[in-house]
């Protein structure tokens, strides 16, 4: 019994090899076209490249007949290879994701944070541009005492959850940590008056003074950073993209 004979690929091996190659190509295409941005952060790219390379190796091994698969393997091939290929190749896009403009990823990193624009120390104001929202949020969150009393001007979406009080909202942007399922809103809590409270999900420009205060309801509250004495203007424009930590 020689090894050469034993390693001759059968039809299942060939089908399997082609599917492995298709999966590698689907992953490569997903990255090359930038479609991955809708689902995972750019931090995933190196790992996805490794996965594609491993699948190419599997494709070669399968076509060389190393696995000697038989008909029993067909069912599992559908699950292990066909489902991932179809998910990556066919158009799948939730309406909420496309509506939220999540086709652009904006990195928050220390290097970018070092040269942020919009700071006017003389007037004690920080005008946050849409793409620097994440970096500024991080810097202010970590060095709150340095910016206490500053007037902060920013754009964001109005989001309300059970952690904020009745006349409070979060001027937020979206943060993806790893994949689309963990997308969460983050931002500055704003103290508003009942008369100036904007509608949820509206895009607003907020100008408020950074201070420390009570966030939450009478039954559940904590001391945190918020923007007080805020001027709130509802606008029709909206920033695109989500933030991620590099």
């Amino acid at each position: 019994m020689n090894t050469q004979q034993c390693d001759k690929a059968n039809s299942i091996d060939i089908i399997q090899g082609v599917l492995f190659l298709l999966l590698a190509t689907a992953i490569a295409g997903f990255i090359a076209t930038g479609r991955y941005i809708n689902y995972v952060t750019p931090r995933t790219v190196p790992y996805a490249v490794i996965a594609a390379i491993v699948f190419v190796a599997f494709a070669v091994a399968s076509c060389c007949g190393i696995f000697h698969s038989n008909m029993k393997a067909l069912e599992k091939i559908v699950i292990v290879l066909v489902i991932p290929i179809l998910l990556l190749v066919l158009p799948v896009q939730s309406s909420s994701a496309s509506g939220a403009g999540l086709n652009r990823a904006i990195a928050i990193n220390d290097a970018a944070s070092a040269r942020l624009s919009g700071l006017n120390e003389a007037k004690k104001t920080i005008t946050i541009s849409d793409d620097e929202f994440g970096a500024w949020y991080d810097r202010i969150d970590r060095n709150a005492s340095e910016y206490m009393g500053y007037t902060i001007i920013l754009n964001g979406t109005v989001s309300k959850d059970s952690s904020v009080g009745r006349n409070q909202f979060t001027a937020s942007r979206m943060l993806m940590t790893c994949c689309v399922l963990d997308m969460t809103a983050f931002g500055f809590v704003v103290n508003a008056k009942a008369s100036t409270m904007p509608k949820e999900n509206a895009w607003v420009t907020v100008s408020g003074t950074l201070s420390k205060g009570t966030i939450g309801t009478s039954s559940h509250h904590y001391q945190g950073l918020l923007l007080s004495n805020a001027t709130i203007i509802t606008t029709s424009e909206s920033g695109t993209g989500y933030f991620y930590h590099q």
Partner: protein
Amino acid sequence: MGSTITDVIQAGTQKTRHGFDFQHFLVAVLAIAMFILAAPLLDSTGIPVSSILSGAIGLLLQAFPFLLIGILVSSGIETFITKDFINQHFPRSAAGGMFVALFLGLCTPVCDCATVPVFARMIHKGIPLPSAVVFLCAAPIINPVVIWSTWFAFPDKPYMTLLRFIFGIIVSLIIGLSFVILPHTLSVLRPLNGAPAVRMRGMDMPASSQSQERGENSSGIGALERLKAFMQHAYHDMFQIVPYMLMGIMLASCIQVLGGSNVPGWLQNRGSIIAISFMMALAFVSSLCSSSDAVIARGFGTMFPVPAVLGFLVFGPILDIKNLLMLRALFTKRFVLRLTLTTIVVCFTAMVILAGIMRL
């Protein structure tokens, strides 16, 4: 017994015992494709199929590479490390073994998806069960990537990183110790009947015995044969685990999309016990990657006390829907049940004790 033209023809026409042949294969492919393409239509019925599929793609892209890394490491252990080596070098005492497992966990910068196949291979290679269990539990919590990501997520609360590290070690050692005090006498590895039949050196054999043979023979074979054995192990592990991983991914995506991630207001201020239970349950159903769950946990920091957030950070990497199904792919139901219950009890008790110490 090589593969001849007749074999190839027979392979193409033969049916499995379930009758799954090429026609069924094509029908299955078409049906899945049609389901994915019809997702926007199904959305209009009120079921957010597109969102569920999008979530599944995100989890798939996140989990698959790490699973492959785990599978390759696992195959490397099977192919290049012999049982004799383990016998000679791995500590014989339970305490020594568990501390070596902790050290291995500290040096393995991978998330929970990668540790399951490595854990299985450690047991197959003869590493004592308590030590392997300590590795399984500790590696996704105390490795450098997770420590860094936790530090990053809680810059103003460095004690969270320290507590996660310390409780990761304590919980892992207690779970491992439970297997020393009450040894698991029955086999833990699942018989591999469902694995695709593959041949080694021209011989058809059940995957389980084949695995044994590959493991035992791997020390005396050449580089090419060794590489082939390495690929076969990796292939075998992948086909064994991925169906369960996909099932876990779909379940986690369904639960997150349908259930949402916002904490119901009535759950807040209900005391530590309820908060810890809720956060552990959330960690289980979320199936988040352990290298990035800290950022999510931070969002709950203002709503729940420290022990509850820590419960999320310690319990989730050890056990979630995805891990549980992957464990089930490789281990017996009895062992998985015991590990699950032990992990729940130990994590919950540890967090309740912490809450007591903090007087919450």
